[in-house]
C-alpha cells in the first residue's frame, strides 16, 4: 500500500526503496512521512508552474473567481485545481471566412470546392439576389471580457457578421455591391459589427472586414457577362467608327490641300501667262508703232505664208465669175481625193 502511494517520480533513489523494502521495511517506515511531504512540495511547485507564450496572456481563476491576468513568461499558481489558467492569444489575428473555406493556405492557397450559398446568398436593396463572400479578422482586446461575458464567441461573431453584412448589403443596389461601393461596405460592416459586439461587452475587436468574391448567382451570371460584353462591344463599335473617321479625315484634308495648291498653281500660271502675253504684245506693239504699215503687211504676209500651204485645197476665184460655188461639191470632192 505504501508503494502504491509513492509515485514513480519519487526523488529518493527508487532502488534504495526497493532494496529497503526487501530487507529493512520497518526501518524505512520511519522516513515515510518525510518522504511524502517532500514529494508533495515538489509536486506542488511543479504542478503550479505554467508559462505564457509571447502572444498570450494568462487569465487566472481561483476557485472559479477571476483573480489576475499574467503577462508572457514563466509563472506560478496554486495547484490542485485551486487556481486555473486560461491562456488567451491577445496578439493573434483570428480570421473567419464566409461563403468559402480555405483548406490550406500558402503561396497558392487551396479553397474548398463546396459552395456555401447559405452564408453567401443575400438580397440587395433593389431586391435582387447576390452572392457575397467575405472575411473578417478580429483579435481579443479584453481577454477577461471574452472569457467571462460571452459563451461561443466564435459563433456569435459568425452570426452577427452575417446579420450585419446582410443589413448593409440590403442598403445597396446590386451594382453597388458588385463594383462601386465595396470599400464603403467594408467600413460600414466593420463599424456596425464592432458596435454590436461592444454592446455585448464581448472584448472582441474587429480588425478588418473585407469583401472577397462578389458574384451574381450562377443562373444570372451569363447575363451579367453579357452586359460586360455589350460594354466591350459598344467600345469596339465606337473605336471602329473613330478609326474610319481617322482614316477619312486626314486624307480629305490632304486632298483639300492639294486642290488649293492646284488652284494656286493655276493662278500663278494664269497670271504669269497673262504677264508674258502682255509683255510680248507690248514689245511687238512698240516695234509696230515705229513702222506701222510695213509691220502690218509683214505680219499679214508671214501669216498667209504659213497658213495657206497648210490648207488641203485652195481655190482662187475671180469675183466677176458667178455661180461657181455649186460646182465645187465640197464634201464629195474631199471623199474622192
Amino acid at each position, binding site marked *: 500500500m505504501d508503494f502504491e502511494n509513492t509515485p514513480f517520480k519519487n526523488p529518493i533513489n527508487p532502488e534504495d526503496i526497493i532494496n529497503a523494502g526487501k530487507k529493512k521495511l520497518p526501518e524505512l517506515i520511519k522516513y515515510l512521512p518525510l518522504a511524502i511531504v517532500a514529494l508533495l512540495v515538489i509536486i506542488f511547485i511543479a504542478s503550479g508552474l505554467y508559462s505564457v507564450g509571447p502572444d498570450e496572456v494568462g487569465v487566472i*481563476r481561483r*476557485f*472559479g*473567481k477571476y483573480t489576475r491576468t499574467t503577462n508572457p513568461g514563466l509563472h506560478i499558481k496554486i495547484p490542485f485545481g485551486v487556481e486555473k489558467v486560461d491562456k488567451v492569444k491577445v496578439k493573434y489575428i483570428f480570421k473567419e471566412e464566409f461563403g468559402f473555406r480555405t483548406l490550406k493556405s500558402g503561396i497558392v492557397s487551396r479553397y474548398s470546392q463546396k459552395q456555401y450559398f447559405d452564408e453567401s446568398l*443575400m*438580397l440587395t*436593396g*433593389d*431586391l*435582387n*439576389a447576390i452572392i457575397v463572400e467575405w472575411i473578417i479578422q478580429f483579435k481579443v482586446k479584453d481577454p477577461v471580457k471574452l*472569457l467571462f461575458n460571452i*459563451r461561443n464567441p466564435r*459563433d*456569435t461573431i459568425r*452570426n452577427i457578421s452575417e*446579420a450585419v453584412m*446582410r*443589413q448593409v448589403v*440590403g*442598403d*445597396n443596389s*446590386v*451594382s453597388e455591391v458588385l*463594383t462601386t461601393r465595396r470599400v464603403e461596405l467594408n467600413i460600414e460592416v466593420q463599424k456596425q459589427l464592432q458596435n454590436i459586439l461592444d454592446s455585448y461587452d*464581448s472584448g472582441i475587436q474587429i480588425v478588418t472586414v473585407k469583401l472577397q468574391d462578389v458574384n*451574381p*448567382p450562377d443562373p*444570372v451570371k451569363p*447575363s451579367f457577362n453579357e*452586359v460586360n460584353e*455589350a460594354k466591350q*462591344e*459598344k467600345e469596339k463599335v465606337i473605336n471602329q*467608327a473613330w478609326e474610319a*473617321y481617322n482614316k477619312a*479625315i486626314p486624307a*480629305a484634308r490632304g486632298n*483639300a*490641300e492639294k486642290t488649293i495648291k492646284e*488652284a494656286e498653281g*493655276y493662278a*500663278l500660271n494664269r*497670271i504669269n501667262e*497673262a504677264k508674258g502675253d*502682255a509683255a510680248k*504684245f507690248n514689245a511687238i506693239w512698240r516695234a509696230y508703232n515705229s513702222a506701222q504699215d510695213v509691220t*502690218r503687211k509683214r505680219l*499679214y504676209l508671214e*501669216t*498667209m505664208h*504659213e497658213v*495657206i500651204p*497648210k*490648207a*488641203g*485645197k*485652195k481655190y*482662187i476665184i475671180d*469675183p466677176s465669175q458667178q455661180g461657181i460655188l455649186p460646182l465645187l461639191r465640197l464634201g464629195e470632192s474631199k471623199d474622192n481625193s
Partner: protein
Amino acid sequence: MNKLIYTAAAIVILGILLFGSGALYTIDQTQQVVITQFGEPIGRPITKSGLHLKVPFIQQANYFDKRILQWDGDPNQVPTKDKRYIWVDTTARWRIKDPLKFLQSVTNEAGAHARLDDVVDSATRDYITGHKLVEVVRDTNRLVDENADMVNDPDAVSIDEKLDTIQIGREALTRGILVEASRIVPQYGIELIDVRIKRINYVSEVQQKVFERMISERKRAAEKYRSEGQGKKAEIEGQTIKELKQITSEAYKVAEEKKGNADAEATNIYAKAYNQDPEFYGFVKTLDTYKDTVDKDTIMILSADSEYFEYLKSAQKK
C-alpha cells in the same frame, strides 16, 4: 516538524472531505448557482464566484451560465405584407437573468431554447407578415434618395421596379421583434439582449422568378449598351461625312476664289496691255487664229480680189 506535517495533512484531508461531501463548492466566474434542498430552492441565487459552503448531502447546487448565450432559430418560411414568400433565419443573444425562475419554468437551456423558438419565431413572424419585403431588406432610404444618381448609372438594375420608400427599416424592425419577444421572456427568467435577422432569402419558386427578372434586366442593360454603341457609331459616321464635306467644300471654295482672282488679274493685265491698241491686238490675234484654224482638211476659196493676191494680177505699185 512532525507537527507541521500533521497539520498540513489534516488540512488537506479536511479539504478533500469537505469537497467530497459537497459542503464546499466553487462557482466559476461564468456561472451562477441556485441551491435546492430536496428540489426546493433555498435562498437567493448565488452569482458571486469563488468558494462557497452549503449543507452537504441534502443541498444541491444547480449551476447556470451567467454569460451571454446564443440562440439560433431554424429558418422559417414567412410571407411578407406584399405577399412575397421568404425564408427568415433569426439569431438571438440572451442570458439567464433570474436563475431561480429559469430553473422553475424551463429547468435548463434546452427548455429555454424551446421557449425562445416559440417566442422569437412568433414575434419575427408577426413583424415580417406585417411589413413589406423592402422594410425587412433595407435599413435606410439611401438608395431611394440617391436614386437620381442611379438613373444616370447605366448599370443600375432597378429601373422598372421603382424603389419604394421604407418607413421602418430592418434595424427598427428587429428592435421591434426584440421588444415584443422581451415582453414574454422575463417569466422564464430570461433576458433577451439582441435579436438579429441573420438570413433572408426568397423561397426557391420566388428565387427563380427573381433570377428571371434579373436576367431580363441585364439583357436590357446589355441592349442599351449595344444601341448606345450603334448610336455613337452613327454619330461619328455623320460627323465624318460632315467634316469631309466641309473640308472638300472649303477647299473648293478657296481654290475657286484663287482661280477667279487669278483670272481677273490676268484679264486686267490683258486689258491693260491690249487697250493700248485694240485694233492692232485684233489684227495680231486674228492672224494667230488663222494659224490654228487652217489645216490639211481646210478648203480655201480665195478671191482674186483679196489683198493677198493683189500682185497676182499686177505688180503695179499702188
